[in-house]
Every structure is written in structure tokens, then in C-alpha cells.
């Protein structure tokens, strides 16, 4: 199986370490992985801001770049969700790419399996707060959302649980939004920052020594608030834990 790794625009520019870690994880698992050069951004930010059509040029680039791959593995739950939900808008190739698009953790959990992931032999001696992005949670189904009355599951914790020595911080609100929300962060700055501060308070009350997420965008927001407040709480993507780059 030939897969494409998609590091969305802000991951490419601001979090290259996350993408390198993810690439190393996939390579060590023996997966044939490519990083096509033509894709930059899925257009989600523009679309969520109400400019869906202006985002179509970006979306078209992504679809063209990824059309030949059996799987598109995205390093952001919200970008993956956007591709899955909206790529159809650029035509039949968009529909095909949407069907083949998945998020990094979902791909590892559902298609590679926990045994293989455990063979990576990651270690992490920290108490970790797991932050699953809202679209990864409710749109892609990476865990059972707290509103839904079905048996609980959490694919991200399952993946992280393969790391030796890891423990998890329990939260009073297991899956409250961190307040990033793309353009929401700049259109409603007061509420956005307040939500972030509240999230950090919950994580710290649960004894978290590190926040680990599916979504670098949430970490950009939470990290920015933490640094401004002088809180030294490391924030990592799941890939960095599995690659053994954060202990």
C-alpha cells in the first residue's frame, strides 16, 4: 500500500518536528510513504470562515497531489475531517480522495494495529493529558464523545498506552473544546483565550506533566496561552511520543 503523508500548511511551516516524527513512525512500521510536494493547505480555515469557494483552489491542489495514493494520512484531525466532508466539492477526484483520507492516529489504530505500534517500543515516563481535537473526536470518531451514550473507547489513549511508563491525567471535563476554532481564535478572542485557560486549568488540576494531542492547531493555541501565562507545560503530538522523541 502506497500512502501519502499530509502535513497541513501550519504543520509544515511551524511544526516540522511533528511531521518528521510521523514520517519516522510510518517508515519504521514498514509503510511505503510519500510526501508529495504539490499540497499545502486543504482550505479549511477559509471555508470555516465562510469563504468555502475561496478555499477551493487550495483544496484542488491537495486533491490533485493525493489522487494517486491509496491512503492520505493527515497530521490534523480537523484538516482530515474537512477533506473527508468537503473534498467532493472539486469533483469526482475529490470524492475519491475524501474516501481515502484518514487521520494519523485513526490510520495507525484501525489499519496498522496496536501490536505493530507497540513494536515501536516507545517510552514516556510522564503523566499525560490527552487532548483529542473536536473534529478528530466527533467527526472522525477517534474516541467516544462524552455526549454519546455508547460504550466508551479511545483510540488515542490506546496508541499512547503502548508507550512504556506512560500514565494519564484524569480530567473533570474529558472533551471540552480548547477554544481554538480556526478563525474563531481571532473573531472571538476573549472567549477563545478563556476557553484555552480553562482547559489548561483542568489539565494541570489532573496532574498533567505534558499535553499530547492529535491536532497541532489546538497545541499552537494552548501552547501560546501557557507560555503567555508562564506555564511550562510541554505539548506534543501523538507521533512525537510514538517516535520516542518526547519522554
Amino acid at each position: 500500500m502506497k500512502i501519502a503523508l499530509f502535513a497541513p500548511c501550519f504543520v509544515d511551516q511551524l511544526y516540522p518536528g511533528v511531521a518528521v516524527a510521523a514520517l519516522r513512525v510510518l517508515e519504521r512500521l514498514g509503510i511505503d510513504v510519500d510526501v508529495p510536494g504539490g499540497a499545502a493547505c486543504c482550505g479549511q480555515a477559509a471555508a470555516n470562515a465562510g469563504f468555502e469557494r475561496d478555499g477551493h483552489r487550495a483544496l484542488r491542489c491537495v486533491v490533485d497531489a493525493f489522487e494517486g495514493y491509496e491512503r492520505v494520512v493527515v497530521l490534523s484531525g480537523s484538516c482530515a475531517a474537512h477533506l473527508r466532508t468537503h473534498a467532493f466539492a472539486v469533483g469526482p477526484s475529490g470524492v475519491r480522495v475524501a474516501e481515502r483520507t484518514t487521520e494519523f492516529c485513526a490510520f495507525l489504530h484501525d489499519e496498522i494495529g496496536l501490536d505493530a505500534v507497540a513494536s515501536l517500543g516507545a517510552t514516556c515516563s510522564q503523566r499525560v493529558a490527552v487532548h483529542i481535537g473536536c473534529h478528530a473526536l466527533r467527526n472522525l470518531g477517534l474516541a467516544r464523545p462524552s455526549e454519546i451514550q455508547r460504550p466508551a473507547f479511545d483510540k488515542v489513549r490506546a496508541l499512547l498506552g503502548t508507550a512504556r511508563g506512560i500514565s494519564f491525567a484524569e480530567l473533570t471535563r474529558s472533551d471540552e473544546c480548547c477554544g481554538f476554532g480556526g478563525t474563531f481564535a481571532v473573531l472571538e478572542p476573549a472567549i477563545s483565550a478563556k476557553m484555552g485557560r480553562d482547559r489548561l486549568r483542568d489539565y494541570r488540576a489532573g496532574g498533567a506533566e505534558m499535553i499530547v494531542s492529535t491536532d497541532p492547531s489546538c497545541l499552537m493555541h494552548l501552547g501560546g496561552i501557557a507560555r503567555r501565562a508562564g506555564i511550562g507545560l510541554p505539548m506534543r503530538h501523538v507521533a512525537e511520543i510514538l517516535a520516542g522523541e518526547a519522554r
Partner: protein
Amino acid sequence: MTTPATRRLPVVEGAGPIDHAAAAALFIADEDRADWHDRALWYVRAKRDVAAAAVPEWEALRDLASAIKEHTLSRLDDYLIQFEAHATANGARVHWARDAEEHNQIVLDILVGRGARRLVKSKSMLTEECGLNPYLESHGIEVVDTDLGERIVQLRHEPPSHIVMPAIHLKKEEVGDTFHEHLGTAAGLSDPVELTAAARAHLRDRFLAADAALSGVNFAVAESGAIVVCTNEGNADLGTALAPVHVASLGIEKVIPRHDDLAVFLRLLARSATGQTLTVYTSHMLAPREGQELHIVLVDNGRTVQLARKEFWRSLKCIRCGACINTCPVYRRSGGHSYGSTVPGPIGSVLTPGIDLERYAALPFASTLCGSCTAVCPVKVDLDGQLYAWRQHVTAAGYLSASKVAVIKTSAQVLGRPWLFRALGAVGRSALRILPARLTRMGAGVWARSRDLPHVPPRSFHAWYRANRVRTRQP
């Protein structure tokens, strides 16, 4: 001196566009109070979770409720006519109101026709939507809201801040001060039991003196013509049992086909709303009692327009439980008045733009699109999807401010050209690394008011990839 009694939460006033972000910032400026409000609403959400978890078939009930509502909406005209025929046969008089104005006129005509001067109302968000109280008062009718929360905000001349808990924005001390001012209770009284007793005594006199009672309606059953009213205080029952005239106002989307369907909705409604298994009173009213008049006013007020909208008709499935409001992380921190709309929160933000897109253009943006609303909704309204869709309409109509449009459009242009994006990205990253933090903070504007910018890496992932991996060919 500002006392808690006169301290007002920000209310969005005037006829111009609602600035939710500004109202929210004002609400949040008192962070302790915002935290208190957030915790109060989260407590209700948590109670809902416990109540829902106790029903093994909860998700199946949601599916069923959604299907029943979609079916009903798909032939709403048939069911409304069925309802009218049965209600009329039972002895009710059914009125049709095209809009708020017609509704208010019909209610006034009924009251004037009976010489009624004193009206007791049980909670009806529809009459709030129609602005009934000020209309009747301007025609010399005394209107008393008898739901405790509604009475509190009525005495304070405030709109409700929530559709199920209208005074949820107020602390008990503020209620005590309001009652001291209007009901003559002792100064400083804040014990909820004593305050409730005072309200009860005050309202009892109004119930006994009323010439007419108006109630809202939770469900109207087409097969029988019955109306069902759910309350916790029994005020709808007392009002309608005592007064010689009962006016029931309902939006046309409240009709359901059969009594059997009630079994689905009643199991969902109170659990979703407050975490109760049922409301304390579930009153089924079929016909006027001997000597009483029962008037049922069916109100459109924009609902058929919403029904005709392909993207938004499903919002009419809403049963007004308020669960999406309680769970909304934005509502909990911005307060109900920040929406400037009778129905706040996610459901308000999909219903209200359909009535006046320019005025309520900001509301679809008052959300992170986290989707908790959609997941909690007992009738599965795809609220975050509809918020997304409204955003497209707001920008197409040109209601987003020019500066915001410029920022978003420029980034879309750049991001749509990978080579340009990478070139600019390199420049941007260098600037962020070289410039002093204070300068970049200014440059990053709103983002950096409350957050630091990320540490900037020396090169992008694509640059690293080109340097470290050779397999960059297309497959």
C-alpha cells in the same frame, strides 16, 4: 453606588447588527462571574449525561425522534390541518397567525372580546419571540409571567438569557434584591426557599385575579387535537384551570402525528433539558372545561421560510430542550444576552439568521464548530453543519467586516498556491525568529493579545524532506 441589584449584565440593545464578540468580552471581563455561569450550566450538562446514560436505548431514541420530526416536517401541512380539525371538534378555536404581528393581534382580540384586563402567562418562548408582553401592555393589559425565572426577569425588565432557565444569569442575592424592590421581601434575603415562597404568595394573588391564561405548548398531537405542556412549577395548570379563557400559542413545528410519538419525545425532553426523567408536570389538554374558552394560535413567523431552505429546514426539528445551549462552551462563557436573540446558543444561531441575516450575521461565527451541540441534541439537528452553512451565506451577502474579509481572502489566495505559500512561509518564519517578541506580538495582532506565538523552526517540513529523503517523486 452600584449594588448587585442594579448591576446589569451586558444586554445587546438597539436595532443594529449584534456584536457577539464585544458582548462576550464584556461578560467575561468579570471572570469570576463568567466561571460561576460556566459551572452552573456545566452542572446541568453533567446531570443530562447521567440521565441519558440511564436509558440503554438513548441513541436509538434520538434516531427515532429525529425520524419522526423529519417525517412530520415533510408533510407539515397535512398534520396541521389534521390537528386543526380534531382540536376544533374538541371545542377549541384554532387561529392561524402568519407572523408575530398577527399573533399579537389575535391574542389581543381574544382578550378584548372577553373584556379581559389581567393575563397570567406560563413560560412561552414563542411569545417572547413575538414581543407579546410589550404589545399587550401598550393596550392596557396587565401581563404577569408566572414561571419563576420568567417572573424574575420580567420584574427586572430583562429578556430571558436561556430558553429553559430564563434567569440562569442571576445569582440568588440578585433575585433577593429584585424581590426586595418589587415584592417587599426583607432586604438581604437570599435563601432560595424563602424567595420561592415569596414568589408563590405573590403569584397566587395574580392567578386568582386573572381574566385569562396564556400557555406555551411543547407538543400538539395531530391525531387527537391535544396539546401537551411540560412545566416544573405547575403554573400552566393553575393558570389555565382557574381562568375562564385559555390561549395556547405554539409554533407550527410543534405538531407531532400521534400520542405514541409522545413516548419518544417525553423520554428525551426533560432528560436533555435538565437531567430530570420527566418534568414535574406533563399536562395533556384535550378540550376546554365547561364554560371555558380554549383558543389555540398556530404561529408561522418565519418557520415556513426556514422549512423551504434546503440547508436549514432540519433546525425545525428542535424541541427547545436547551441541551445545545448548556453544552456550548461559548454560551457558557458569554451568557445568553450576548446573542441578542430570544433563543441563544447554537440553536439560536441557526434559527435567528434566517429571520434577519444582517442583524444576526455574527451569530454563526460565535462557535468553534466543536460539534458538542450536535452530539447532545435529542433530535439530531446538525447544528455545527448549519452554522458552517450560515457562515457561507453571511459572507456571500457581504455582512462580514471588510478587514476580516481581507485577512481571510489573502490567506486563501496564498494557501492555494503551494510555491507562494512556501516562499512566504520562509520569510514569515525568519521574521518571527529575528524580530523581538514585542514587535511580532503587535504584528500578529489579535492572536497575540492573549497568546504567545509558537517557537519558530529554522526550516519547514518540506525543506527537511527534500534534504533528507529522495523519494519525492509522484507515484
